[in-house]
């Protein structure tokens, strides 16, 4: 296996990208990544594009070749869409990583895209709910806010997590994204505002939830031994892990633990020969405030049940023990579902290059955690800057 590095990144802002199509935003992010890498389009040997619900929301499928043609990639390039709900572009990165690591390609373009804001909230809720098992709990009208509400109430019951802990996650992430020009929301929020926002799935309120967004993000991968020829600050991928969790809530022994995250984290730390305390900055999958708390425990940053208290103690802020989601996360940067995984990677790469608008001081090792559906899919990647 060869080492794999990131030599170029590209993105659109996340938010309401009025008048811009799915094809257009994906092309913009990919083009930016290729230009930043300083390679010719002709050098790209494979393309993986993560996307979740463009078939349902836009009636648009077969989008990998669609975007490749829009970009002008050579026709011999194999183009593949990957889908794993909100983890789609985490998987795209993983697939590209495998190809380069195996020595089957030198330059691989990976991207993610979603166009959501042209559809209604109900249509989006329906599209997202397609990730439930439609033969079983999908029939009940369970939603993703509902799924995480079930977890939240159980977490509060088992560990004494407070409703204020959830609100504080939202307050932190809204505060973080005030500095991030790529974020959908740039305004601070208060605990009172979060608590007074309208109910979505009891006990989760609007400000506990990620925001439907448009967006695209991309990266160019190459073998680590030649990465310095293309980038002044190549970022090495120390670990790439991809796991599977339960498809239904009722089959989980304890839904306050998402096993796919626990397993992916274990594999990633082993591969990188690191421990959770070695991570300087993390972008993790805060699709809901409770998800950030659960993820921070499952990734080993805090003991199970202590995640909410860690937020209260300020441990997850920039400057804290483990800064979590300095970008604003899915809650405040936005969650264009198929683009989110690589959007997180974009933020981590900026952090490790020392170029982030909300910079974590001396960030040398970063982690990204991308989760799909009921924790059915998870990827964890660990990155390192050189020198």
């Amino acid at each position, binding site marked *: 296996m060869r080492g794999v590095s990131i030599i170029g990144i590209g993105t659109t802002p996340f938010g309401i990208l009025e008048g811009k199509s799915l094809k257009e935003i994906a092309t913009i992010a990919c083009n930016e990544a290729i230009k930043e890498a300083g390679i010719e389009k002709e050098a790209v040997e494979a393309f993986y594009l993560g996307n979740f619900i463009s078939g349902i929301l836009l009636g648009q499928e077969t989008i990998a070749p669609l975007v490749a043609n829009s970009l002008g990639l050579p026709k011999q390039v194999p183009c593949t869409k990957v889908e794993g709900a909100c983890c789609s572009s985490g998987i795209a990165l993983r697939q590209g990583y495998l190809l380069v690591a195996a020595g089957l390609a030198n330059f691989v373009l990976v991207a993610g895209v979603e166009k959501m804001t042209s559809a209604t909230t109900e249509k989006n809720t329906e599209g997202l709910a397609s990730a439930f098992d439609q033969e079983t*709990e999908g029939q009940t*009208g*369970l939603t993703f806010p509902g799924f995480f*509400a079930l977890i939240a*109430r159980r977490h509060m019951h088992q560990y004494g997590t407070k409703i204020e802990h959830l609100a504080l996650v939202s307050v932190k992430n809204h505060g973080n994204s005030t500095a991030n020009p790529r974020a959908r929301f740039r305004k601070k929020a208060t605990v009172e505002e979060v608590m007074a926002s309208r109910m979505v799935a009891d006990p989760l309120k609007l400000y506990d939830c990620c925001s439907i967004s448009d967006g695209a993000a991309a990266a160019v991968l190459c073998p680590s031994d030649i990465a310095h020829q293309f980038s002044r600050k190549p970022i090495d991928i120390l670990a790439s892990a991809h796991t599977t969790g339960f498809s239904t809530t009722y*089959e989980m022994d304890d839904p306050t633990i998402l096993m796919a995250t626990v397993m992916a984290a274990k594999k990633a730390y082993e591969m990188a020969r690191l421990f959770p305390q070695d991570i300087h900055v993390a972008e993790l999958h805060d699709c809901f405030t409770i998800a950030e708390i659960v993820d921070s425990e499952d990734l080993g940053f805090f003991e199970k049940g202590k995640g909410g208290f860690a937020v209260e103690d300020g441990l997850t802020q920039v400057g804290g023990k483990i800064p979590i989601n300095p970008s604003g996360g899915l809650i405040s940067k936005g969650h264009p579902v198929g683009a989110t995984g690589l959007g997180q990677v974009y933020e981590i790469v900026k952090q490790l290059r020392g170029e982030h608008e909300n910079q974590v001081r001396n960030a040398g090792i970063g982690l990204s955690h991308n989760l799909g559906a009921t924790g059915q899919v998870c990827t964890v990647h660990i990155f390192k800057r050189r020198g």
Partner: protein
Amino acid sequence: MNMPGEERLTLLRCAGCGALHVPPKVLCPKCGHEVLLEHSASGLGNIYTFTTIWVAPEAFKKQVPYEIALVQLEEGIKVTARINKKPEETLQIGKPVKFLRKNNLGYWFEL
């Protein structure tokens, strides 16, 4: 929305390892055995966790607000279900519930 349906709560028991499953299952994901026998459950359980849905998918929009719970069955496994709740009733973790029916919306329980 409360269409009539099955009045009995039927689970599947694996003929190989004895594990209970919520149907449908083609085979036992635990041991791989392909014979799964119908098992009549008592229909009794308690609330493991619950939520009230206020923002629903398009097809469920007219039903909001509605209650969904994970019900811990007496038999030891859980099932995701709708709860038929009277306005004066409140849900709570641990509260006993009993099976009502299964229809196009899945399983229904009541307090």
